[in-house]
């Protein structure tokens, strides 16, 4: 049997975490191929729907990356993200998802190694948890 390779969606902000991903790439740092990055203009534009959609379509984990507080290109988008992710985390937990499957981290534009570290660590966490409880189930 093949070892479990999680599918992870990373929703990252254009200005910081995506730039950090770019930096990691141009610096030839590698991170697991389980991560599918979606670039968004700001972590503050991440509606709870995006996270739900990822999980309901079978993602094993969702990573949200934004700018450090104070560094947001749009002033306070990242602070909106914190509250929203707290709320959606609480809801997902009610329905039997492990809260560790949703992770929010601040990774600045210059933090390529941080990006690599976070991705590697998150993949390990999800591998430890195993497949999403609804991975192959039909969802109405």
């Amino acid at each position, binding site marked *: 049997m093949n070892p479990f390779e999680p599918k992870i969606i990373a929703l990252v902000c254009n200005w910081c975490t995506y730039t950090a991903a770019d930096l990691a790439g141009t610096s030839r740092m590698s991170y697991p191929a389980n991560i599918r990055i979606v670039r968004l203009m700001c972590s503050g534009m991440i509606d709870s729907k995006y996270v739900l959609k990822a999980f309901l379509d079978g993602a094993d984990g969702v990573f949200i990356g934004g700018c450090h507080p104070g560094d947001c290109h749009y002033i306070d988008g990242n602070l909106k993200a*914190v509250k929203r992710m707290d709320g959606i985390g609480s809801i997902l937990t009610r329905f039997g998802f492990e809260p560790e499957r949703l992770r929010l981290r601040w990774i600045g534009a210059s933090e390529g190694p941080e990006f690599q570290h976070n991705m590697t660590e998150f993949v390990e966490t999800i591998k430890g948890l195993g497949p999403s409880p609804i991975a192959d189930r039909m969802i109405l």
Partner: protein
Amino acid sequence: MTVFKAFPEAVTPTQALRSMLEAMLSKHLVDAVLVPARSPYGKLPMPMLITDPAGLADIDPLAPVAPFNSARQTATVTRHASGRRLGLFLRPCEISAWRELIKLHQCVHEDTLLISMDCQGRMENDTYLKLAEAQDDPTTAFYRDVYLRDETTVSCRMCERFQPQGADLTLCLLGTASELPVLAVETDAGKRLADDLGLVDCDPPAERASAVSDLRKERQAFRAARFSAITEKIKNMEGFQQLIATCLNCYNCRTACPVCYCRECVFLTDVFAHPPETLLQRASKKGSIKLPADTTMFHMTRLAHMAHACVGCGQCSSVCPSHIPVAEIFQAVAADVQKLFDYQPGRRLDEPIPYLAYGKENP
């Protein structure tokens, strides 16, 4: 500081309210009142905007029924300050929902006077209509027979917020004799109104506190039992899917929800109007896809958007053609989210909506 006022003569609570609203209109203390009343065509009281005191003949604000939570209708007449003074009669859950809409800048509270009551719940429409068949005065019958409370909706029987938050005047219906209604005056505006109406001070109804506490205990016990049952059912997605398996995506629950705040719902936009290619591609991923699609997405999105503001009115369950316990699911999830943010919808107007108050910096 709450003061209590008595009505000049022994009357039923409905008569007392009617004479009070009459006096408010004829003395020009308000320009209009919004109050549930029966139309000439049916037995269900509906919110009626009344300017002529003669129009108060058929009001029935205390009827144990509410075809919808009228917060949204209240928001239409309070969308902006019109310069007219409005007297609003609302149930506690309607006040809370309306105050959430105020925080969302969809309406204003200026120039309004809020009148409410110790709410003992509402029945489903058909239960109420049966009572109305059997009784000439179903409203008075309801408050005389405490066992009729068991006929109210599950959400009402789970409700611990049956006393209004933020009303100027509250009609005391707990622990008072039904022929001697007492008005609790909670605000300065309420006090001015009571003075203008010439209501006289009286002692606090002696048994109200214990009646309130008894009802709260009863509600808490019922709530705890329903919570543990629903928690067991939704403890995983499998159970949740079983509960919503009969959902038709009619979106009645969304329409009935007083705090579902978007002017245009994303589920009615092109975002969820999938072209055939998308549906076929989604079907091919797991071999099949149920249509209409996105049922789970719909319910969970609503939870994510509204759980912090759920006032527990139960209208989502009442309008569900498939008898899905939407309100119980919502209230169980809402309890978590409201506890997480230490937020209670409608508690205070200056308490910001948690998603709009930034302070927390780290995940």
